[in-house]
């Protein structure tokens, strides 16, 4: 019993993804919402690497690598957008950033 069942990894990934959804839906600070998205991306990465282990192939690692690159690009552009919005609105609360709603 020194081996970990593969379902534990997948369940851990699901737990992290659910927590990311919770942060995305319940939090009101735009930076924390952004960090919740990063948490969800990390959970999906764990699933990719786990299936890569199960199938004994390296392809899952490549997908994780691409997800990391896209996450880095997303963080750079997203945080620049947050900076611009804060410069114009002086707020980080997503309830106040509703000009696309009406």
């Amino acid at each position, binding site marked *: 019993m*020194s*081996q*970990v*069942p*593969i*379902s*534990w*990894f*997948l*369940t*851990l990934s*699901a*737990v*992290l993804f*659910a*927590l990311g*959804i*919770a*942060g995305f839906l*319940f*939090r009101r*600070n735009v*930076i*924390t919402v952004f*960090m*919740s998205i*990063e*948490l969800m991306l*990390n959970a999906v*990465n*764990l699933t990719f*690497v*786990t299936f*890569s*282990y*199960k199938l*004994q*192939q*390296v392809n899952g*690692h*490549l997908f*994780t*690598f*691409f997800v*990391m*690159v*896209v*996450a*880095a*690009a997303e*963080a*750079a*552009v997203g*945080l*620049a957008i947050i*900076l*611009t919005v*804060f410069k114009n609105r002086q707020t980080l*609360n997503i*309830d106040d950033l509703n000009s696309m709603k009406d």
Partner: protein
Amino acid sequence: MDVILFLIFALIAVVCAINVVVQTHPISSAISLIGVMGSLAILYLLLGAEFIAAAQVIVYAGAIMVLFVFVIMLLNAGVEVKRGRSFMVQLLGVPLLIAFLGLVAWIVERLYPEGTTVHFGGFTGGSAQAIGRALFTTYLLPFEITSILVLIAILGAVVLGRKEMD
């Protein structure tokens, strides 16, 4: 031994992830998120993904989170303001999440009841050499497209972040 290692770092990851959601100050959330990423790097090592573990620490915990902390400091973001949430969210939010989690766990247990088990050293194809070979042969076109994407992201960040010049 592997089970103990997994349980310790899975527990750290889950506790830090809960902390990300619960903390009201963005800086506390960011520090907790670094904890999640660090323990996930250990779990990647357990799965034989040494290159991805190193990239996780360098790119995620290093570069991306430093960017987040910089922006939080720059904007001087404080404790978030509590607002009344809508009735539906208060009533349905947490039960729906638990239902989602239960559904996923049920599917996973059904698909892999006594499936593969993970032990350290069970997969040795995750070295930098293997990943580099796959990256520059099979995945050459996606790799080049990704480099263009990063270039566009750099330009976009510079354009968005510069001072307005009339």
